[in-house]
């Protein structure tokens, strides 16, 4: 049971990550894959605050989100004023570059990671409580994004994404919308990072590399980019699958590459067979 519950915690975290990533790339149409770095920034911020100060956990989580938001502006401001395609390359460079910096900083634990993060929930029901918080936060984020998208702001975003030229010629500031979307999405990732840090009490820079980007991207693509439930379905499914595979008795040398192989194969199949993902209603012409 405990094991299933720990998977639930992870599920909540990844639902937040995939939903917020979907906000950025699916709804916002912004080609960035640097989502894990904001996840990392949130985790490290919360971790460092908890290791060095005895701070009220929700505050540390918010701090994580805030730091992620600020850093997202550092990425989006210079890159977006040029062209969307450049954001892709800059985001890769930003992610990997910041990770390198983190690996060199002693107070962040360097390459061996930040450990000894305080345990904020004592007792036998620790995992259950974390699972509740994680799922709860995921629900809040999901509903918030849903409210954002279905509201008037969402219309602005769709308009901007579908035809930026027209949008701008109507006197609207596309840049501002992009920055806001990017900031909100990244802040959510930061929150998820803080939760992650508190649950595992250990943060390691290697967990936020391109592989993580690929995983979150897979969840969004398989689930359905630009649909609301898509990322949720993607997250749940793609967390379930490796856990299940992990229990099967394949020879170990086959196991890890096999998981990776299945992941990448899944994405490739989906890109061709069902580019709109599992949950999308409409086959978008630019999917």
């Amino acid at each position, binding site marked *: 049971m405990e094991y299933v519950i720990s998977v639930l915690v992870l599920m909540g975290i990844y639902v937040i990550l995939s939903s917020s990533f979907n906000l950025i*790339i699916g709804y916002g*149409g912004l*080609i960035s*894959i640097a989502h894990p770095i904001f996840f990392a920034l949130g985790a490290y911020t919360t971790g460092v605050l908890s290791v060095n100060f005895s701070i009220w956990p929700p505050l540390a989580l918010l701090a994580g989100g805030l730091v992620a938001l600020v850093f997202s502006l550092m990425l989006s401001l*210079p*890159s977006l004023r*040029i*062209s*969307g*395609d*450049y954001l*892709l*390359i*800059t985001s*890769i*460079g*930003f992610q*990997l*570059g910041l990770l*390198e*910096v983190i690996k*060199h900083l002693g107070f962040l634990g360097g390459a061996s990671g930040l450990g000894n993060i305080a345990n904020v929930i004592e007792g036998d029901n620790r995992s259950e409580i974390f699972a509740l918080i994680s799922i709860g936060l995921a629900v809040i984020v999901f509903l918030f994004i849903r409210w954002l998208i279905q509201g008037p702001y969402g219309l602005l975003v769709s308009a901007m994404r579908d035809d930026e030229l027209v949008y701008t010629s109507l006197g609207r500031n596309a840049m501002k919308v992009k920055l806001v979307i990017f900031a909100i999405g990244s802040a959510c990732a930061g929150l998820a990072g803080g939760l992650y840090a508190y649950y595992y009490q250990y943060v390691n820079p290697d967990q936020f590399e*391109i*592989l993580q980007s*690929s995983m979150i*991207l*897979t969840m969004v*693509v398989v689930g359905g*980019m630009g649909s609301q439930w898509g990322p949720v379905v993607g997250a749940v499914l793609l967390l379930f699958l490796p856990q299940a595979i992990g229990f099967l008795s394949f020879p170990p*040398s*086959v196991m*890890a*590459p*096999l998981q*990776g*192989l299945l*992941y*990448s*194969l899944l*994405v*490739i199949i989906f*890109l*061709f067979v069902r*580019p709109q993902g599992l949950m999308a209603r409409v086959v978008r*012409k*630019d*999917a």
Partner: protein
Amino acid sequence: MTLSILLQILWTGLAVSSYAVLFAMAFSLILKVVKIWNFAQAGFMGLVFYSLYVSLNIFEWPMWAGVVLSFLVTTLAAIAFFHYGIETLRARHSSSLTFFILTLVVSQFMGYLFAMCFGTEPLTITKNIMSPVMLVGGIVVSHWDLQAMGLTALTVLLVYWILNRTHMGQFMSAVADHPGLARLYGIDVSRVYLYTIALACLLLTVGVYLLGLKVAMLPNTPLQMMLLAVIATLLGGMGQVFGAAAAAVLLSLIQSLSVFVIPSEWQSLLIYAFLFMTILFFPEGFSWTAMKSWFTVRRA
């Protein structure tokens, strides 16, 4: 820092920039003509390496046979990828994100495949990685250095000749500028793509051959080498294959020389710093014509 140290670093830095140049040119060429940010290149680099490894160490063929086989295998695989993968997405007018996902994921897929087949031990093409050296005016010159610079120079000249002196080269430029228009003029665009891919694979084959003689490869080594290729392409200017080559040399040399200015562990960070500077100040790539036009009036 003495003169001899400086010269030594310049020499070895230049030699090592050889494979960086080849990888950057391949990436830039595909971007120029096929208009794809081909992150799958890492997967194909791996394919070259492991084909070479298998031919030399398992079939026990001579080096030249292994190289030819690797080139053929990789070119075929690349062509298949472009035809079944990229063309399909193109027909659907997919977004750049989709292309990005596909190319990256194909690289990863190939990486996992190699890991499953070859394990994750670091492998070298040849058992021994030492290369005989000689002293030339106080500078240590190894046989590998000479081979690397020689082969790279030859390859670059070959590419130059193809792009600028052959009909196929002209077609490539035409397709790069406007595929639709090129088609109207009767150019077989698909055939041009084929040749471009083959040329890129040639560059990769030579580059991986040189790299494999010097360094032990893991399944994910190629992906790590891609960063410099991408940044060199950006810095060199979109559509400037030789600009990318020059940028690759520059970046390599700066990395090598920087050890005297910054602590060696920060060297990799330098590359990212360059990426940012490029995006901020030279988004269209660094080109002399752009610089000149800042000062002169452009002719219509």
